[in-house]
């Protein structure tokens, strides 16, 4: 515990670096997954293939990928860019199938109705299709957040600053408190971001948590307020 108190600045710096790598990767994975999923939805037959290919990407072992990427990208092995690119790829592996499901979850009748009201294709996507895919997109994004935050630590093995360095350093120097601090903080960041997403979802999609209709009003019992109002209007 005294190690933690004595090294708050180190821990803080590593936590900051951790977020600096996780957040861009999460945002990129989410933003890039949307067009890929839309395209896959249009291809119909190929949709299953794209979904499977994306999922297979997640099976690539992370350490070798972190080593190969600098060669491909021409960056230094300790650059945060490598980590962000690698994490974006893993994020896409999770987010693309989730986004495909999300767009499929939107009721075709509602889309047709929107077209019939006079939404153009672009307006229909932004105002109707994307918001309605929101709940399933959010579920996928929550998995991406937790996965990405924990994967950032792998960079620590290569010497890229992150909370992962606390494990590596702690093991080498035999400081249990340092290892524990790394684990607890990584989990805490994942949970905090997840919590923020849930709150954002409630604020942005109040309709998704709105209650269901009461049973169809019985004509014999309490009068339907609608029918009563109709009588008044007529």
């Amino acid at each position: 515990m005294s190690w933690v108190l004595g090294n708050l600045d180190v821990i803080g710096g590593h936590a900051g670096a951790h977020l600096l790598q996780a957040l861009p990767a999460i945002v990129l994975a989410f933003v890039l997954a949307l067009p890929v999923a839309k395209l896959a939805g249009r291809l119909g037959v190929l949709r299953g293939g794209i979904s499977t290919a994306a999922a297979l990407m997640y099976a690539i072992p992370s350490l070798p990928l972190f080593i190969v990427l600098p060669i491909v990208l021409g960056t230094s092995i300790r650059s945060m860019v490598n980590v962000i690119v690698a994490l974006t790829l893993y994020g896409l592996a999770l987010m693309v199938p989730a986004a495909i499901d999300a767009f499929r979850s939107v009721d075709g009748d509602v889309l047709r109705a929107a077209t019939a009201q006079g939404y153009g294709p672009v307006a229909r996507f932004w105002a109707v299709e994307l918001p309605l895919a929101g709940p399933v997109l959010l579920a996928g994004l929550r998995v991406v957040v937790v996965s990405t935050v924990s994967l950032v630590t792998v960079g620590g093995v290569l010497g890229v600053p992150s909370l992962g360095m606390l494990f590596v350093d702690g093991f080498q120097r035999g400081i249990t408190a340092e290892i524990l601090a790394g684990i607890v903080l990584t989990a805490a960041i994942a949970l905090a971001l997840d919590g923020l997403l849930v709150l954002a979802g409630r604020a942005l999609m109040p309709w998704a948590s709105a209650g269901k209709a009461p049973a169809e009003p019985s004509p014999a019992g309490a009068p339907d307020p609608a029918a009563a109002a109709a009588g008044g209007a007529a």
Partner: protein
Amino acid sequence: MIRFESVQKRYPGGTVAVEDFSCTIPSHTATVLVGSSGSGKTTLLRMINRMVDPSAGRVLIDDQDVATTDKVALRRSIGYVMQASGLLPHRTVQDNVATVPMLTGTPKREARAAALDLLETVGLDRGLATRYPSQLSGGQQQRVGVARALASDPNILLMDEPFGAVDPIVRGELQTELLRLQSELGKTIVFVTHDIDEAFLIGDQVVILRPGGEVAQAGTAEEILAAPADDFVERFIGADRGRRALRLEERDGTRIVVDGTGRAAGVLQAAEGDPAVPDGPAKDRA
């Protein structure tokens, strides 16, 4: 006035939804296209607002070929109500009703205020304005669907089996409500249904369709009932089973109207000021 001129719809793969359909739909009246599934009635309806483009032939609104119009603008100028109401689940009732005015640039505040008035027009309480569609009953959702279709004050109202998904009692209420609205607003309504009784109730003109969009008979309910064009129409309106030929019978001292199968269809009541058909004799016997 809406005119179909030798309209055909063929899908890639060879399925023919509509073979050759011509029909004139007069303005300010309700025309019902009625037929079983596969009759192409919904396809025909969707040709009017270009949700479907015909493979051959033309659809004209007031003598303008719809193919020459801008799709999006055309759809905004025509009210559309569908079976599952098609309301946007992520918008409140009020914003659903205000959809088209807001798309065409009416200020939000103005569109929302107008939406509140429309809710009353279709017989809904203003208190429902801030609810989401999932919080309404099926019948209420359909009323919101009608309000939304009326919001841009369109001349034409397309209704695709709008009351098909609600229970019979609510359907009856909605039908009555539509007739009341139509008597006030006088829109050009094109209404699609598979229910012949609904067609006879709503339609000033009823068009009975065979599979492939072929017109079996078109006319008023009275004309069709009085003189079904052929066996198909007789079967469709139930005349072949005797459903339309009613006669009086006395059962247990009550005068009952029965159909051709002997099934009771109702009770005979005296017309107002007409003492000729009272239930008096029945009471005497009882």
